[in-house]
């Protein structure tokens, strides 16, 4: 479903992703693990048409994301690292807008929205503004929305960041369920090893822009002689802490938080 060969992305002199190759089978849940700044999000951006690779080849469901953008976009759903909902609209309106943008046929639109909102336990709140939702509710709505146009691939970029264990648990239960019932291929990144171990069929560990190991969590543990995935991860990536510089978006979000509680 996803084939990546010798993928490279350079920003000026700096190589964010260097010579990454992997394959994800149809219906598989594939986890991408790595410390901050390892190249996870850059890779997702290239897979999802938001960035063009410097070199290398990507094939998604037989299509090239840098040339057949619209056809590729129709085939995947994405939940970004940071929220991407419209707080000034209701949950239902957010879903409806997505359905229109992704050309979900009018006949099935309402029923599909209802089915997904019910599944993610948001149906009672469908007419409330999203700005009144908790972090967990927003995340559930985003995942429900990503499933709306029946994508073949679902990208989840650190979807459980900042959520409590209950919400995380429920979220993965839903994702697993939809993976099985709709045969959706899932590509996810996370910092929580237990989540990767629990849901992912296969795991790739990326560091400094390159894949250092891939396989099932069992294989990774054996490879490093560790008794946990966390141990394997640390053995492969070392224990140095990576600090990311704050972007202008992060700074503005801080200001916005101070100024208003409207969103």
């Amino acid at each position, binding site marked *: 479903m996803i084939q990546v060969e010798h993928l490279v992305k350079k920003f000026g002199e700096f190589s964010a992703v260097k010579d990454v190759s992997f394959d994800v089978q149809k219906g598989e849940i594939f986890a991408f693990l790595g410390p901050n700044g390892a190249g996870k999000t850059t890779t997702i951006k290239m897979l999802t*048409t938001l*960035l063009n690779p410097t070199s290398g080849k990507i094939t998604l469901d037989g299509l090239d994301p840098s040339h057949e953008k619209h056809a590729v976009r129709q085939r995947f759903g994405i939940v970004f690292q940071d929220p*991407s*909902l*419209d707080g*000034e609209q209701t949950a239902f309106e957010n879903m*409806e*807008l997505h359905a229109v*943008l992704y050309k979900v046929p009018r006949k099935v639109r309402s029923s599909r929205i209802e089915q997904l909102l019910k599944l993610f336990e948001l149906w009672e709140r469908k007419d409330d503004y999203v700005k009144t939702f908790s972090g967990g509710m927003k995340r559930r709505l985003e995942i429900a929305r990503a499933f709306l146009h029946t994508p073949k691939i679902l990208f989840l970029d650190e979807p459980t960041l900042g959520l409590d264990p209950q919400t995380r648990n429920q979220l993965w239960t839903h994702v697993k369920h939809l993976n099985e019932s709709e045969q959706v291929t899932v590509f996810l990144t996370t910092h929580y090893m237990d989540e990767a171990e629990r849901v992912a069929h296969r795991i790739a560990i990326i560091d400094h822009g390159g894949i250092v190991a891939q396989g099932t969590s069992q294989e990774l543990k054996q490879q490093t002689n560790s008794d946990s995935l966390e141990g394997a991860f640390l053995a492969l990536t070392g224990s140095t802490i990576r600090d990311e510089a704050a972007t202008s978006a992060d*700074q503005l979000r801080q200001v916005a938080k101070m100024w208003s509680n409207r969103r």
Partner: protein
Amino acid sequence: MSAIYILWLRELKRYVRSKAQMVASLAQPLLYLVALGFGFGPVFEKSGNGDYRQFISPGIISMSILFTSVFSGIAMLWDRQFGFLKETLVAPVPRIQIMLGRTLGGATVAVIQATLVFIACLVVGFRPVHWELIPLAYLFMMLIALVFAALGTAIGSVLQDMQGFQLIMNFLVLPIYFLSGALYPLKDLKTGMKIVTRLDPLSYGVDALRNILSGIPNFHLATDLALLSGVAVLFLGLGAWLFSRIQL
């Protein structure tokens, strides 16, 4: 097409739902109308230019269109920071449609806002000379709104943070307003000022509205129409190009 519609609708919903913003953006034009209208009124009349309220009202209506439409474009900054922009940019929809939906939405909101200001002007004592020409005035209002909503989209596409917003406000929006003849007649200006005011697209919008609503012409209506349409096409092109280049 439906993508343009749903994004246009979103802009309208946002406007209708934020009553506070609606009232707040009425306050400024009203302040100008009352403070300047009654403050400068006597001097203006003594110099033989007639009723200042008749003169200034079309200018105040133009100002509200300018501010509302440019700000609707700059509001993209929030969508960028809060991520909603990303949702629209990864959708399988050509970016031009997304840009058009947003821009047309912003322009529509500006015309609605202008209608409220128009009503406020009537309350303060403004009287259009030809009521039957109101539809023509609306044509020009829409054109002004389109010009500046497109400009707003162009600016919003390149702005990264709030600091830039102050820069745009002080070095672009306010000069466009103060140099447009919204508050004073352009006809007897010195050469330098004359050139500057003629380079300001809002001058032609103000002139058209003042011509139609108050019967005080400076340029030709045909000139106004041609120039505004030209600038609208130019800014829409610029906005579409800059919007298509947004990287996340």
